[in-house]
């Protein structure tokens, strides 16, 4: 269960203060697939970062299974990011110097998973996203869609319960985007993973159970998706 209570987040951008979130309240149940939509600057990504423990609110509470993120120190947040959540970014954010396999192994290195176990799991995850034959390729040798699939495999490395995706298809062609969304859908359906996707793309949003529309740092509308996965 993810719960945000009256959350505000203010950024200093040069001389001006940017109100990214203004008193936001939201609940997301375990196993839900949620899409967050809205124009640029509406606070979508900030919301995602707060849920994932990458950022902290100025006021309010962000609860992950009754654990208040705002009360955690740097190490505890790192622990949370390492074990409970997985991130997928628009620009993939793979480490360019490492192979696909090493990239997927990385989160497990920080959790001190033994080498052999790590290797096996990374290989299995890459096979699951259809990259069993690309293990030793570096990001620069992979297509955008392949990179994003490596990123998903990496996000799954420590068996998180929540997957956070920030415009996961934003840099991909329609077909690759479709593949990525199919993978996310499967994770949600088969493993009951909570999935939260930030997107501009209605084609992406239609995979979600609920669509949350944001504007000016607040929730404008929450809609149940009746055309789910179509």
């Amino acid at each position, binding site marked *: 269960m993810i719960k945000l209570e009256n959350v505000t987040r203010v950024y200093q951008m040069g001389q001006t203060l940017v109100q990214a979130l203004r008193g936001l309240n939201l609940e997301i149940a375990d196993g839900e697939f949620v899409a967050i939509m809205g124009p640029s600057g509406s606070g979508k990504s900030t919301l995602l970062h707060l849920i994932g423990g*990458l*950022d902290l609110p100025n006021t309010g509470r962000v609860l992950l299974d009754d654990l208040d993120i705002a009360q955690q120190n740097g190490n505890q947040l790192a622990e949370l990011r*390492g*074990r409970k959540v997985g991130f997928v970014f628009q620009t993939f954010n793979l*480490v360019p*110097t*490492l192979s696909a396999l090493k990239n997927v192994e990385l989160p497990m*290195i*920080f959790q001190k998973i033994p080498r052999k176990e790590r290797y096996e799991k990374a290989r299995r995850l890459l096979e699951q996203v259809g990259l069993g034959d690309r293990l030793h390729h570096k990001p620069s040798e992979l297509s955008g869609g392949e990179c994003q699939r490596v990123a998903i495999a*990496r996000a799954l490395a420590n068996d998180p319960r929540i997957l956070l995706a920030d415009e996961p298809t934003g840099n991909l062609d329609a077909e690759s985007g479709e593949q990525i969304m199919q993978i996310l859908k499967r994770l949600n359906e088969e493993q009951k993973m909570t999935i939260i996707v930030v997107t501009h793309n209605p084609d992406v949003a239609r995979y979600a159970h609920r669509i949350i529309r944001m504007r000016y740092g607040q929730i404008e509308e929450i809609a149940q998706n009746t055309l789910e996965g179509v």
Partner: protein
Amino acid sequence: MLLDYLDLAYHNMRSRRLRSWLTVLGIVIGVTAVVALIALGQGMRRSVEREFEAIGYDTIIAFPGGGLGQGPGGGGFFGGGLIAQPINLDVLRQIPQVAQVGALRIETAMVTSQKMEGQGFLRVTGLGPGVRENFSGYFRNFALAAGRDFQPDDQFVAVLGNRLATDLGVTVGDEIAIDNQSFTVIGILQPIEQGRGGIGFGNINNALFVPMKALEALNQDEGKVSIVLVKAAKGAKVSEVANRIKSAMSRQGTPVSTVTAEEISQRISGVLGGIQMTLAAIAAISLLVGAVGVMNTMYTSVLERTREIGILKAIGAKDRHILSLFLIESGLIGFFGGVIGVLCGIGLSVLSSGFVARALAFGPVGGGTSFGAEFSVGLIIGTLVFSFVLGALSGVLPARQAAHLRPVEALRYE
């Protein structure tokens, strides 16, 4: 865990190959200089030690009168100015811890040869009975090229250094005149590399040896000695024996000053050690410059990899993980620099030991033994550990900066 970090750091260095190598090069130069200087310095000390080991640490050299640089000649004990004075050697022989006593007498005399015109004042060294045999270390450069060695009954005979024989134009069996007394040349010594000689008779190539009693006959006196060589008995403490010699001779009214091989070698080692430390300190400055280079590279790296640091944090890396990653990377740069620097330092000191040996040959000791750079395992291991630590230390500030980056801001960095 450490292996994984080493692996990651290595991947990073490889991906920025040129810059990594240039940074490593900065360390290499410093380490090379330090290792080469220390190795040469150690070699020099070893060479001095060997010199005195050859003479024998049980040997005490005693100078009648002021001795040691205070003689009327003022030339010091390494050169000349050793005025012969009456010494009762039997007193020394009676000291229980004394095993052997030998004497040298050094005089300057007019030397001429029939085959050459003109004449010259030369240093003539008179050898007391048994001194050659009993102090073979002291006379280790006394090797005959032709003729024979002295025999107990010999009187007006001479053994010449190689160059002196050439200068005088004489060979074995020829006659030379010392202070108008005719001497038969019975032996000529092997030429020795320039500069090698011995205490008291200088460059052995120009040496002129005669029996002690020949000098006594020429000077019409007896019992005068310039240098006394004393060998301490086995197990006796050399410095104690030296003190006994001094007090015994003082009681006789003929005070002597003494030096032991140990004393001289310690004194020279001390001086060399000082020089070595100074040079190493200067070399260390270049190492410092290398360390600044590492720091610069690591700061650049942190800046370049800000986004990557954000990614690592997003997937669960803690501050200390990031810190370790960067410290290990800068440590590795230092370590690689150390490895290559040690190899270059060894190479450089081996190559330059020839020059140093030649320089040493003109030195105070006369470079009696061969010289080579010396590498101890401690020096090599110490240098490697030191360069790793130096590299890591240079990375501390950049690594801290990286570790404390806030994940969201790092991720946003373009």
